[in-house]
């Protein structure tokens, strides 16, 4: 089974205590060891030590594809919109990541509308961690931007009732699988919303690949469903953005 990780990161935060010294090298070593073909990767340093530097530190290479961390246009932190678009294209960025909670901005359309418009124009999925926005804001973002695919990353397993309701309410919402840890959680989600709504992710380098991989491989699902989750869905979402070739 080929795996493409939609939820990997490099970079360190001041609070990191147990992370490997070089998260980027660690990520790539672990990808090789655990049979992960490619990964979308954002830089954790971008949320603490400078957006621009953080985003630029992820250089697209054979197996890693950058996901840029962005904030609303209002503060002008990323310069003129047309230049940002060009930089995103040049960097071969394959996703946008928003941290409304950690980076202190509202997810509402009046603040983030231009970001979602940019994502739609570039056919890039928008990744938002479950802990970064409440369920109502996530729904409103999805409903307000039906042309943008929004991936809820690291969804806490005990909030699965929220997730069912969200995925049933908005067809452009997707789930990243690293923390789908309830018993038969993967199987039940596939039955309810379809395997086409789940994207394999790891949470590396905070979390590890082992449980993420066996969570898909050992699930009581068809091979076709597992392939969709492991790589097919992400490849489909990124087709118009240049793919992962």
């Amino acid at each position, binding site marked *: 089974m080929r795996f493409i990780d939609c939820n990997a990161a490099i970079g360190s935060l001041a609070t990191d*205590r*147990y*992370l*490997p010294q070089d998260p980027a090298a*660690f990520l790539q070593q*672990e990808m090789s*060891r*655990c*049979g992960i073909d490619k990964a979308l990767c954002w830089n954790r340093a971008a949320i603490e030590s400078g957006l621009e530097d953080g985003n630029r530190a992820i250089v697209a290479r054979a197996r890693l594809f950058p996901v840029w961390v962005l904030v609303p246009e209002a503060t002008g932190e990323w310069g003129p919109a047309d230049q940002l678009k060009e930089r995103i294209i040049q960097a071969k960025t394959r996703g946008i990541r928003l941290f409304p909670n950690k980076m202190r901005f509202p997810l509402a359309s009046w603040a983030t509308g231009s970001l979602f418009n940019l994502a739609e124009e570039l056919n890039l999925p928008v990744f938002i961690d479950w802990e970064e926005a409440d369920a109502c804001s996530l729904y409103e973002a999805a409903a307000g931007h039906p042309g943008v695919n929004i991936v809820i990353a690291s969804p806490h*397993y*005990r*909030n*699965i*009732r929220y997730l*069912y309701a969200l995925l049933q309410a908005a067809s452009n919402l997707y789930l990243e699988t690293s923390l*789908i*840890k*309830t*018993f*038969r*959680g*993967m*199987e*039940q989600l596939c039955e309810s919303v379809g395997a086409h709504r789940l994207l394999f992710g790891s949470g*590396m*380098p*905070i*979390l*590890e*690949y*082992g*449980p*993420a*991989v*066996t*969570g898909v*491989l*050992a*699930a009581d699902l068809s091979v076709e469903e597992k392939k969709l989750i492991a790589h097919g869905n992400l490849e489909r979402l990124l087709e118009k953005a240049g793919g992962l070739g």
Partner: protein
Amino acid sequence: MSRLLEEYLETGTLRDVALVDHHLHSGKVSQFYTGGDAFSQVTDNLRRWGASWGVVSDLNRYPEPYAGNRKVEALVREQPSLLRGAVYLSANRPAGALEELEQCAKSDCFVGVKLHPEWEGRSLDDPFYTEIACAAAEYGFPVLFHTWGARDIALLHNLALRFPRTIFLAGHCGGEVPVMVEAAQIGAVLDNFYLDLTFTWPYAEITERLVNICGPHKILFGSDALWNSMDGAVGRILFAKISDSEKRRILQKNALEVYPRLADPSPPTTE
């Protein structure tokens, strides 16, 4: 590559080690949604992994005291070659607890004790748990305490010092990374203090770190099914950067040592 991992990737199961999942739950779950609406799904899952044993407890509060233990007994009698029970005793229903423990010890359906102070809104140093922990040793029952946080681990440490004949299992290793490390440090020193790896967040390299601190012989595998995923839990061990013999210890051998009744099982008596 690890032979165990290689074998799993080739066959989808484990043929070279018959794992023991010592931390299973039965009974309905309402607080959050889980796909486990029938315990038969857990036994199916155990079989898919080629498990030798699962140890199950039922923490739900039923009208009749100890009805959960009777339900566990019924499950064990349905699957006598795969399941054994952990006696669940609640500090909020203390009447007859020691008698219940004695009765369960006689039934051959049970191999250990499960205690869950947080579930009951209690502190781990509640006198009820102290009394049960002391009595459990009389029956050769290890005691699996749910622990989460530094305070729980510190209190369990005290209990382990106080009752050296009782085997204590720190459920979830205390749950958070720094606490897990502290628990492993205690496990490295105290013979009767073990770590239960069940449903700790799969922090990168934490399994390796714990093995380095307390040794592979002090860590037991568990999954928390039917609350949480067994498949993910096995993956943590299979993919860990430890030797295959260490993986076998964690997946199986340690449980057979800690739970003597699993190593030398008597068939459960029929009702």
